[in-house]
């Protein structure tokens, strides 16, 4: 099915400065590619009708209503609308790294967050935003209204990355505030101590949250390749180190592999979805992959 979708590559969307427009373009393409919604309620408490969306299972159409009115509608139930989803966005300085002409990791991550917000709100799910770094963080508690979506998009658009990564502290702080069972989607480059990250994820799971980690990577981080001497500066701390390209490639590749393996193994044991996403990958493709995996997991 994915082959039939014309994916919009990040470099095509980058010129669209308006996040709302960009998100709309992404989401429409994504919804059209879905066979069925990964979120469906279990409660018999009817809430309202909503129009049938292409891609949803036909069995969900209210055929009686269709016989009376001739419109294809879907019945919504109370629990289905009360899915609480948190979008946990890393806005540390490391997310500003961009080795391509398209998007930085932060740009990609916030577009991804906006798209997910759109999808969730459109499905009447409550969605909240929690953008964090070592300093101040942005927190919008989950709601399922269009006002909430606008608020999220506005905050995402105006948000400026900075500070160091402090996933463990930030996520733990959030976990303390969550009272209701829900879904947490972590969008980050995870450049922190693996043990701290795992501790935070475990904390979220302890709070009965379904957790999904979208590991945002720049293409250069995915396959580091450089020649000649390098004076590497850390975007977060400003610290520098002088290495040659070949050595840097070897060490970085080895280090990243170990880092990924540690987090991925922990996620598997905690039943947390872990999905690397490279900023060169089309959004729809990434979203479909994420949503499909989510469906398999739960």
């Amino acid at each position: 099915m994915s082959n039939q979708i014309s994916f919009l590559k990040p470099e095509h969307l980058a010129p669209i400065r308006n996040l709302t427009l960009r998100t709309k373009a992404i989401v429409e393409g994504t919804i059209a590619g879905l066979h069925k919604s990964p979120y469906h309620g279990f409660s018999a408490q009817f809430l309202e009708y909503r129009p049938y969306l292409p891609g949803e299972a036909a069995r969900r159409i209210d055929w009686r209503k269709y016989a009376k009115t001739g419109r294809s509608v879907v019945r919504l139930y109370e629990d289905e609308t009360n899915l609480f989803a948190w979008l946990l966005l890393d806005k540390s300085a490391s997310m500003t790294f961009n080795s391509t002409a398209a998007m930085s990791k932060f740009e990609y991550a916030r577009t991804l967050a906006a798209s997910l917000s759109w999808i969730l709100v459109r499905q009447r799910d409550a969605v909240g935003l929690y953008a964090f770094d070592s300093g101040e963080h942005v927190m919008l508690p989950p709601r399922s209204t269009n006002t909430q979506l606008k608020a999220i998009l506005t905050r995402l658009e105006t948000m400026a990355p900075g500070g160091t990564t402090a996933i463990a502290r930030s996520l733990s702080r959030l976990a303390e505030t969550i009272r209701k069972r829900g879904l947490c989607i972590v969008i980050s480059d995870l450049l922190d101590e693996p043990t701290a990250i795992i501790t935070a994820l475990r904390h979220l799971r302890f709070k009965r949250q379904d957790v999904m980690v979208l590991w945002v990577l720049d293409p250069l981080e995915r396959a580091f390749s450089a020649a000649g001497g390098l004076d590497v500066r850390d975007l977060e701390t400003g610290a520098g180190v002088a290495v040659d390209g070949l050595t840097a490639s070897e060490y970085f590749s080895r280090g990243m592999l170990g880092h990924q393996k540690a987090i991925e193994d922990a996620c598997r044991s905690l039943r947390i979805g872990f999905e690397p996403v490279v900023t060169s990958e089309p959004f729809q493709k990434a979203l479909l992959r994420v949503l499909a995996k989510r469906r398999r997991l739960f």
Partner: protein
Amino acid sequence: MSGISFVHPEFLWALSGLAIPVIVHFLNRKRSRRLEFSTIRFFSAGAVSTSRMRRIKRLLLLLVRMAAIAAVVVIFSGPYSAKDPFMVLSNPGASVYAFVDPTMSMDYRDAGMPLWKKSFFLCDTLSQYLPAAAKRYLYNEGRSEFVQVKSFGAPPEPFVRHGPADIDKMAFALPGSTGRGAGMAALAVLSDFQQNIGGPLDTMLVRVSLPVLLVSVAPSEPRNCGIRDVSLSAANRSVITVRVACQGRNLDSAGISVSAGGMRCGRAAVSAGPGRAENVPVTVTADLQNPLGTVTLDCDDPFPADNAWYFVRGGGGALRVLVVGEPDECFPVAAAFNSLGASQWAAKSRQAHIVSYDDIDSAALVVLCGVRQLSPPLAILLHNRSFGQKAILFSPATDSAYANVNGTILPVRDPASCAVVYDPKPHAVVLPDTVSQLFSGFKRLKDADAAVSRYCTGLPGGALLRLDNGKPFATHLVDSMGNSWVMAAAPLGMAREARPGGALFETGLYVPLLDRLAKFALSAIQKGQQSWVAGVPAKNPFFGAKRGALVFDAAGKLISRWSSQPLVAFSSPGHYRIQPDGQPSFWVAVEMDTAEADFTYRAPVIPASKAASVKFLSSRQFGAFVKSRRSGSYSQWVWIVLGLLLLAEVFLWEKKRMPSSLQK
């Protein structure tokens, strides 16, 4: 570096290629660029030190590549030690002289190939490694000079084999020996270096100033059996004693054949161990009627030249007799010698004042017959060693006017001791009781027929014959010059003064007396029939005789004409017929030089001062030595360095590995 020079220094321009790796290095070298990266957490201290090591390795790699290029250039340039005199072999302007030992020992077949052929094969190797423009000279034994050739691969024309290794002549023909500068010249001497060549070669090495390569082609373990001597018994003509020697091998029941005139007339078996020599008597079935005899040793060995021995019975030609004195006195003496047959004696007479050096030199026997004055040649004969050992038959002058001259001629300390006495009663010569060794088997004659009344007293030496009064009639003495004197007390020729008695020539005793006295004088210094050795020059028996001779081989083929040349030689062993002008022919047997069959080798003594310019090499070392001079004596070391550099290159070079994917 002052000690290093190059065969092709023009190739050193290629050292400018050293700039290539430097340029490539700087082109590939990227400036250290700043990279704002998401994290440096994976770049630990190890990465920094590894980077530093990589930088050092890259620098080392650059140096290794530069050194490798330099090594290649140096190899092509042919480095060598400037102090190496043999680098002249790689110089296009060089003159290279080759001397191949022409002696018979070089006929030894080592691994199926004669040593002289092997020598030319090695010479060809030398020729191949020499620059094309280098001049090549090969020693021509026949012409006694070095002849320029295009290649050393073939013997010169004519190539005189089996000649003597006249090292002195060869050394004289070399540049630098006659005042000419040696310049860019080198000498290669290829020989088996037998002991007999060692002495002259040692002398030559002291004298020559150019670099000399002594290449030994001697077999490592020579093995040979051969005939060393054949004795013909005068008493028993039916037995021939053959001396057989073995070296480095056993001889088991090999056959010895004796043939005369091509017909086999005797055979015996011989066994000998290594290093042993056996005397084998061979009984011939019939008396050797044919004068041409051959003894053959039937065995298979790598040096067959000494397996045959040639002899001639009763041959050898006439012995030359010079009779010095007044014609009337000399005539009976010369006539007596000539009457014995032209095959035995060839006598001629000369007056004392006209006798020449050549006359004396060519004569085996000098008869001083009443000499009354000493010409310079005669004075040299008596008081100098110039003529070598001569047999002298002295016949005194007994006339009163010159009787005192005898004392000045004879080898006596006091000339006055020799006086001429006259006894009216003639005294006969006592035969044979006092001189049994001289007249053994001789028919006893009437004493009165050989009686003298005027004779000399005070003759030096031991008495051979005595008169009946006990006075010596004939004495023998070998003087300090080595001359064998037989002195007669009374004139052997015609005496001038009238006297009763004293006319020996009128008796039947006269001719045999002269014959025996002459032969005794010759035998005392072991002179007689001339013996011939192949390749060894000997005195021309016709030198100064104003007549020559034709020389034929056993098959009747004319091989030479002997005329006025002082020395003549036979090239190979065998029977030869000499045909003198106007005289009957006679046969001679030419043997091989037994010294050539003695395969005892000796390395030449290299003077300490010539250690650098004289090399003694085996045939195996020779090729590598010459090759190293072609490519430069240091080339092999540079090759090793280049190999090490390439090894270092392999160790230092690292392939740029693409980083593995983070996602499996």
